[in-house]
């Protein structure tokens, strides 16, 4: 299963809802405003660190770049993918559950 989340964890609880329900080992892709969750040093970083140990967590590179989030300063274990990687995740891990 691939879970996708596109909302900031500081504004909506979509990511929290996802993390509380995804099966161990599931893939989770953060894109659009959800990529802020992947930054080091935020009040959400501990939750994200825990998530990275239970799930495969990915962040979409172009959305990091748009928001000025340095891909070298993400929570340990979060992997960066580009649009091609997004497509590969859908193809390999599907079905997709979108947490809006």
């Amino acid at each position, binding site marked *: 299963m691939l879970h996708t989340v*596109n*909302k*900031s964890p*500081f*504004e909506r609880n979509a990511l929290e809802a996802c993390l509380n329900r995804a099966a161990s080992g599931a893939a989770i892709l953060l894109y*659009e*405003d959800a990529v*802020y969750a992947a*930054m*080091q*040093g*935020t*009040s959400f*970083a501990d939750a994200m660190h825990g998530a990275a140990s239970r799930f495969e967590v990915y962040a979409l*590179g*172009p*959305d990091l*770049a*748009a*928001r*000025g*989030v*340095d891909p070298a300063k993400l929570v340990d274990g979060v992997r960066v993918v580009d649009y091609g990687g997004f497509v590969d995740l859908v193809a390999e891990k599907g079905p997709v559950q979108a947490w809006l």
Partner: protein
Amino acid sequence: MSDEPEAAVVKRFLYVNRKAPHGTVYALEVLEMVLIAAMFDQDVHVAFIDDGVYQVKKGQTPGALEMKDFSKTYRALEGYGVEKLFVEQESLTERGLTQDDLLVPAEVISRAQMATLMNSMDVVLSA
């Protein structure tokens, strides 16, 4: 009837930004409202709280999304007489950010000071 123009009314305007910049259109729309108020020579203040602080984060390159990089416009506000920019300290801290991460000179104030600022305005517009 006098030909004298009426004395211009100047009000204290506060624009409160609470949304991250690229996921929705709110940030860009507020920026346009700010420029309009500035053209009418109003006393314009701009606040960044909650996810709004991301609007003034350095290093934004939305070209990869084929979107306009309006983050540069915040730096140009000074040229329109908009110099009263306020960023809430608590919102920065929650997001692992500091004043050094901001792309524009802004006064970093506490949540309590932000509340006082809001309470001192004639008009508050929020998005």
